[in-house]
């Protein structure tokens, strides 16, 4: 019940944030005035929450390796699954934005895009691996991979500072970006609440899975 309340509150907050963004936020980013710039609020918040979720997954996986309580593995798996969906949304919203502003769906020379795609592939590998996991030893190996995979996240987050990027500036601190901070914080809070709700939901699925023989489990 409490998770539904959190999820509902998250959706409501996102609605309020959307209204605020639509009416109050500036549509001018990087010197270009276009409504698609408003995607920024959702693109950044979904990316931040997705990456934070991967940090949660890494911590839960490390804890699982230290002491293999199934609950820790469920949290890690649920967090990766939901973060993967959030990362997919991040890439898609970024591509839509790029289509209008850069006149290109994808730019291989943009380090942030490329590193974000690599993170997506890395966690796709994690999900593929877990489709076939059956025994406790498989889950331990999955947890070990999750810990290693997290190395890619800080690299991606810091990529625009580590490497010169011709397109993707440092998102929040760039001179040519004026952010409506309350709207952004609301979007971030709403997205976080939705994330927590989805992880809790997914965790319950993993908890229920243990009562179903592996051979009869639906592949999700």
């Amino acid at each position, binding site marked *: 019940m409490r998770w539904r309340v959190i999820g509902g509150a998250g959706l409501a907050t996102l609605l309020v944030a959307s209204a605020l963004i639509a009416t109050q936020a500036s549509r001018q980013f990087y010197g270009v005035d276009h409504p698609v710039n408003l995607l920024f609020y959702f693109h950044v918040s979904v990316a931040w929450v997705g990456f934070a979720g991967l940090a949660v997954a890494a911590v839960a996986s490390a804890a699982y390796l230290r002491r293999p309580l199934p609950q820790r593995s469920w949290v890690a798996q649920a967090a990766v699954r939901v973060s993967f969906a959030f990362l997919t949304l991040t890439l898609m919203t970024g591509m839509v934005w790029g289509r209008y502003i850069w006149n290109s769906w994808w730019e291989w020379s943009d380090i942030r895009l490329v590193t974000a795609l690599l993170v997506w592939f*890395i966690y796709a*590998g994690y999900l593929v691996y877990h489709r076939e996991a059956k025994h406790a*030893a*498989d889950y331990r190996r999955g947890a*070990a*991979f999750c*810990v*290693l995979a997290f190395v890619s996240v800080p690299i991606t987050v810091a990529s625009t500072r580590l490497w010169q990027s011709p397109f993707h500036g440092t998102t929040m601190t760039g001179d040519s970006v004026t952010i409506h901070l309350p709207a952004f914080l609301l979007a971030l809070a709403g997205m976080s609440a939705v994330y927590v709700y989805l992880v809790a939901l997914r965790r319950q699925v993993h908890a229920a899975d*243990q009562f179903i023989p592996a051979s009869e489990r639906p592949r999700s």
Partner: protein
Amino acid sequence: MTSLLPARPQTSTVPARAVAVRLEHVTKAYGARPAIDDVSLTIPTGSSVALVGANGAGKSTLLALLAGLLRPTSGRVTVHGCALEQRREASPRVGLLTHQTMLYDRLTGRENLVLHARLRGISLHRVDMALEQVGLVAAADRPAGSYSHGMRKRLALARVQLHEPDVLLLDEPFAGLDPDAQQRLARLLAALRGTTTILFTTHDLATAAAHADEVLQLDAGRVSRAGHPEDAGAEPADPDGASAPAAPRARPAGMLRTAWIVFRKDLTVEARGRATTSAVLILAGLLAVVLGMAFEPLAGNPRAVAGVLWVLVVFAALHGLTRSFDEDAHDDALRGVLLTGAEPAGVYLGRVASASVVLLAVALAALGAVAVLFAVPFPSGALPGLLVVLALAVLGLAAVGTVLTVIARHSPLGETLLPLLLLPLAVPVLLAGIESVATLLETGALDGGWLRILAFYAVGMLAASTIVFEHTVEG
């Protein structure tokens, strides 16, 4: 014949019927199905116990739990008072013979035993004694891969006896042996009876009657009956007996020594099989010729050399690490190494070191071949920089690749999963490696920024993977 009987303290110092092996409410589940279901058991020192039961009753799982090969889902297992989690204390006390012989095919019989003797920290003269005991002296210098099934099993028996374990665990030891080898084994078991605690599984009640003081019957993961062979149900083991004192034993090799032993073993295996080097050098020639013919502008282009070089190095890593792991996985050879009580981190570091050396040799050979075929001159003084860049890059690749190979090969998807796991994680190495080599070939100067990324990646991945490796190789 030289005796293999252990030169241990007099048994008179050990309390009569003191407990050698104790299981307390041990459960081992695979998914929802318990293979061992809440088993509590004590086995007295020096007794010989037969485990009987139908296929799938849990006999082999019970032996694997006692050897520390598997972790119980719940409960506790101790051997002479040592919890099995204390690997370095418990491993010298246990010897396990399974259906897998845990031998390296490309090493000779003697080299296999020397490897285990070194890892266990015991004298190498035990190797010759063990070979003599199982009648393999004449075949000792042949590769184990050329042995018959029976010879492999005898060599495995020698491996198990090498460190004079207090507790000997034998999974269907008579299966697959010729009559002569069966007699040798029967004589060995008779000689050990009373001094070494022996647990063996069998389907044959006559074998149980001949070699056991006590029979345990396993049924669906539970011990359902215990007693003497001829009188099942009589005189169960004392559950409250004190554990037998643990006599001092040789300590298994430490982390760095283990790394050195595994490094030498891996290089020997690679030198005999040339699994990585030959395949990659053939691909190098093919790529150079095909790309050279297909793309005229590649001639004289240092960036093309860097690109082709890293395609080869990544191919070498994917191919070489997979083949190397297959050598380890074949017949559970790696499990055998871990059963010695050697530090898993040492095993990991040894494997990374050997993979790095092989990859570096491949990279240097490929770089020379591609540079010559693409007519790209080496700037004077570029070689030390190239060596540093290649060494750091292959170290990073080997560090992460070694762990990911183990993860991928344990998945039903096998080696098809490895590129998906490894390539995205290896991108920093590829990017920095290509840029560094291209810059070196163009200008002769080393780019400090890319070098720092390579160094940071190699050290970071090595540290993280050293910590998690142990969890990836457990059964």
